[in-house]
């Protein structure tokens, strides 16, 4: 279990992490979601002890960070690369040695993993000879090879083709089943929805939403209808019954006014588009994500507009008040 309490980190001009608390349990995949620059990577760097927090604590199964805990963390950074001239097997073995694995054991496990990722036979090839996707597989192997108790994956699937994304999903799920604590940071909401047990949505350095995926979706249930259709649906967002719309080419998620039913809505659609399906749904993580981030930004702008005459352009309080 990784438990983070009141974590805080301020850089020269940015409050990167603002009082974040969260707990990732053993045997679960904890999704760390949020837009670019939300503070996810800073949080992850603090968990890896790469940078120190200004305040707050991070405990690993109740213990503070130490050298032996470093060896029990597997980390796949978002900014990642390998020595281009080095050979593949020796690269994996090097990083495994840094994790205190013996040479023989590191070799054995590396060969096993290369086989699993369809890279058997590439042991003696140089890293630069591999495609980007295959280099990424090597990096994933490096994160896993020492069987870490804590697995921290920052956008692990980006750059992988669908087949390898599935392989990665299977592996992450195996790791969860083996009782590891997994922190999974991503922008891919559909993936998070399918894979994660619990999530925390981070925006501007604060946790704005958290809980199990079901809890989060139920909490945002509201009056949402999903319409699948053919034709030009662009008028949907302008209907007076519709508060908000997440539009696609042939489906739309519509948030309706509280007392509007499907029956009330249908007459306005029936002549203008060809409806193949209409149902009441829970919102997807993606629409919750967009909705939450957009709301925070809207509120902030309003607050800032109100305040501008009185105080300076920059005020940290707006983060606290702007969040839900």
């Amino acid at each position: 279990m990784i438990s983070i309490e009141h974590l805080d980190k301020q850089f020269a001009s940015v409050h990167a992490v603002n009082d974040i608390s969260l707990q990732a349990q053993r045997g679960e995949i904890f999704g760390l979601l949020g837009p670019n620059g939300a503070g996810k990577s800073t949080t992850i760097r603090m968990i890896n002890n790469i940078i120190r927090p200004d305040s707050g604590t991070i405990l690993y199964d109740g213990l503070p960070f130490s050298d032996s805990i470093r060896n029990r963390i597997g980390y796949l950074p978002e900014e990642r690369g390998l020595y281009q001239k080095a050979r593949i097997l020796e690269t994996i073995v090097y990083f495994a040695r840094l994790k205190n694995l013996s040479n023989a054991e590191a070799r054995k496990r590396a060969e096993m993993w290369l086989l699993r990722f369809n890279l058997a036979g590439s042991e003696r090839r140089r890293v630069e000879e591999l495609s980007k996707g295959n280099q990424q597989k090597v990096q994933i192997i490096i994160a896993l090879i020492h069987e870490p108790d804590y697995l921290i994956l920052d956008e692990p699937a980006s750059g992988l083709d669908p087949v390898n994304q599935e392989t990665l999903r299977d592996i992450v799920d195996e790791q969860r089943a083996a009782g590891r604590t997994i922190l999974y940071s991503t922008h891919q909401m559909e993936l998070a929805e399918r894979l994660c047990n619990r999530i925390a949505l981070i925006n501007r350095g604060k946790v704005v939403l958290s809980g199990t995926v079901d809890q989060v979706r139920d909490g945002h249930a509201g009056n949402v209808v999903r319409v699948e259709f053919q034709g030009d649906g662009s008028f949907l967002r302008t209907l007076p019954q519709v508060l908000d719309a997440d539009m696609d080419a042939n489906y739309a998620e519509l948030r309706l006014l509280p007392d509007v039913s499907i029956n009330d809505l249908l007459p306005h659609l029936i002549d203008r588009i060809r409806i193949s399906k209409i149902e009441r749904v829970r919102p997807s993580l993606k629409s919750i994500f967009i909705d939450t981030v957009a709301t925070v930004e809207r509120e902030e702008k309003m607050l800032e507009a109100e305040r501008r005459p009185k105080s300076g352009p920059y005020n940290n309080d707006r983060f606290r008040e702007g969040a839900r």
Partner: protein
Amino acid sequence: MNRGRIGAIARWEYLQKVRSKGFIISLLLTPLIVILSTVLPAYFADQPPDSTVAIGVIDRTGLYFNELKQSVEANDKLPDGNPAYLLANYLPGSRPYDSALALADRDALAGKIEGVILLWDSAGTPRVDYRSISPNNVRVINNFGRSIRKLITGRRLMAAGIDTALYSRISKDIDVEPVKISKSGKAESTGFLQTFFTAYACCFLLMFLVLTTGQSLVRSLVEEKTNRIMELLIGNCTPQELMWGKLIGLSGLGLTQMVIWVILGLGFATSFATQGAGVIASLKGVYAILPLMLTYIFLGYIFYAALFIGIGSLVTNEQEAQVTTSVLTMALVLPIFVALGVIQNPEMPYLKILTYIPLFTPSMMMIRAVTKMPSVGEIIGSIGVMVLATSLVVWAAGKIFRVAILLYGKRPSFREIIRWLRTE
């Protein structure tokens, strides 16, 4: 710090670099260039010609041709017993001077003769010119110069009625043999060249050691930053472990290069008997002060390596890396030039001041130690300065390294660096 990890990093850095093409090429190419540019031209200039060379002579004085021909053809022999030079008289009594000169020039241009020796008289003083397509042929000028000088001197002695044998006995050259007085009371003769060689060898040793290690340090840091390896590394070890691992591994690289060069150098020197003897003799001279030399090399090495680490970790791309290494290289090479003055006069006050500037201390002290051993106070003082400066640079480099390796895109301002130094 975890020693296993430092060892793993050191091993990795060493093996990755020692097998790289760049290292192997510079390992072999550098000594080759040194040998090609210094030793070989001198060696070949000393070699006797392999076939007889024809030389024309225009003797306007009419006094020397026959004697010159006799002495040169009798004394300068090829290894197979044939004369090295054949002399042709271009000014027999029948031919006017102008056409003799024109003929000789024509023959020289056509390659029939190597050149023409022109003997003439200018207001009672004999003059000698050598005309040739390659008039700076050292061997010809030396050989003929010597023979002609002897002939002319002989004529003058005869004219003055002095016995030639007596003259050569009383005019024999007297060499001054430099003998260095040492504390042991044993006087040892020392050549200027040997002193020069020993001190310079030690300075160059330090310089190449620092250069090889420093350059690969900066280059490996740039690679890890631009390829985004750093984040992965720092997730696996502490910055201090990374710094020491790199320092140890790449020092090994510098030492490997050094050992191979020293072996090549000694092997080369001993295969050339005359120069080799000098080298071996000068090594004996250094033996007694070897511990002192090694102390300065060690301190100087750590000092410069830490400078490379501190400044190198701030670098974010290949161009900056090049600028950084060349500036530091200049700081390294400078004392070697300054040191020239030390050999001539170790007591100059400004040289004494330079001794206490840490950038120069090791080189200055090493050169002063072989020319005139500084007082015990100066030795202790300079080592003290070096230890202090080195500790300071190592401390600062560690602090800067810790933060700077995580900066990929932007270079920090001077103010930021000062702040890093202040943070705990």
